[in-house]
């Protein structure tokens, strides 16, 4: 088989744009997921049974269904039940981007909520008892003992979730969001060479996650100083 990467050179800019879109999509989704995940965790820890059961169902449902199904549900389902996803005037493709961010961030929020929960649960019960035995209230104990220690475990896990999302977000190319994955199919169609463009995006994805993984390990080292 003959591989000729030079035919891709005219498309360098498109690949770069696709990469930027992938990074933007992942970053936006994880940031929104961090907020939604927080609300879900509050719901799960709430004494209100209805809240905690719905929050648990939400995370179970998201984690128990394929992300592709979720993307289609949003892309085709929402307009059908009367919630059209708007196209921002002057920004072609923004409808797809919004769908992508909504789908990925909701998906990610379920996983992020689990990250928060296990982070909080990982704190040694003895320290919580010690705090309570000193007369600290449960909210003071949360604020001064549990959360500061949980954050050290949660931050690396959140960053890892970002790495996962940079890869998994490629799924939204299916609805026409112009991320790295989508660019490769455009280029494939234009050049009639499927293999080269796939190799290029594989290398780009791998380079991206390698850099991020490196950052993660530095972060883990910095945060574990006091363990």
């Amino acid at each position, binding site marked *: 088989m003959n591989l000729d990467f030079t035919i891709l050179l005219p498309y360098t800019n498109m690949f770069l744009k696709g990469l930027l879109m992938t990074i933007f999509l992942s970053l936006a989704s994880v940031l929104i997921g961090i907020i939604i995940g927080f609300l879900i965790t509050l719901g799960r820890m709430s004494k209100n049974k209805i809240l905690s059961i719905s929050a648990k169902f939400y995370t179970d449902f998201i984690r128990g269904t394929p992300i592709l199904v979720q993307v289609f549900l949003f892309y085709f389902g929402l307009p059908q039940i009367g919630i059209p996803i708007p196209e921002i005037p002057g920004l072609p493709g923004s409808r797809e981007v919004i769908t992508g961010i909504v789908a990925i961030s909701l998906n990610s929020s379920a996983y992020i909520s689990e990250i928060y929960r296990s982070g909080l649960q990982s704190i*040694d019960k*003895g*320290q919580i*008892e*010690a*705090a*309570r*035995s*000193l*007369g*600290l*209230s449960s909210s*003071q104990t949360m604020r*001064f*003992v549990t959360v*500061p*220690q949980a954050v*050290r475990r949660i931050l690396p896990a959140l960053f890892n979730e970002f790495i996962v999302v940079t890869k998994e977000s490629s799924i939204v190319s299916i609805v026409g969001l112009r991320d790295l994955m989508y660019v490769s199919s455009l280029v494939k169609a234009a050049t009639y060479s499927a293999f080269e463009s796939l190799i290029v995006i594989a290398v780009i994805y791998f380079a991206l996650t390698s850099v991020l993984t490196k950052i993660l390990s530095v972060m883990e080292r910095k945060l574990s100083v*006091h*363990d």
Partner: protein
Amino acid sequence: MIKVENLHKKFKKLEVLKGISTVIDKQEIVVVIGPSGSGKSTFLRCLNLLEDYQEGTILYNDTDIKKIEINKLRADIGMVFQNFNLFDHLKVIDNLILAPMQVRGLNKETAIANAKVLLEKVGLSDKIDVYPHQLSGGQKQRVAIARALAMEPKLLLFDEPTSALDPEMVKEVLEVMKNLANDGMTMVVVTHEMKFAKDVADKVIFMADGYIVEEDTPENLFDAPKHERTKAFLNMVMD
């Protein structure tokens, strides 16, 4: 100072305390001994309401402790745990000033000044700025004692404070506890250190199966136990 009357405690169906009654006077050192699972820890933890109980009353200065605001009660009754339970993310000094500032409302300067005096007392002035993971077990426990003292408690509860320590570190912790006793602190100590009980206790309580089998001065209880159960236990632990 503390009066316990007919205390019953169940975990679900399992009855762990089956009617405990005793009195702890001001400045008294009470040592609690007994076999594993007899309810010693549970009894101790009822005194500061880390455990709830179903029946009976505990009076603190003649007031039912369930009628006292729980965090006020706990501010008055300190506790030292077998596993130290220091706050891992905080330096020694910050372990000591957290509760005084948040619960008693001390300002930082006062809290730090008090904490320094206490660290001096437990012999750890040079460890003020280190994190718990940089300390030995004995040092951790001394910090935990200082942390409890920083709240200026009226009563200190110790649950097997030396059981998690290597033998060579037991002494330094017992030394600190002896000094506290000499300073007039009121203490309830669950321990297997019989020598400490003999030397320091005003009263020894022997518990088995959720009952107080016998309580007496250390002289009487160790040298002339009245109950077979006590004799058997002492024979076992004293070899």
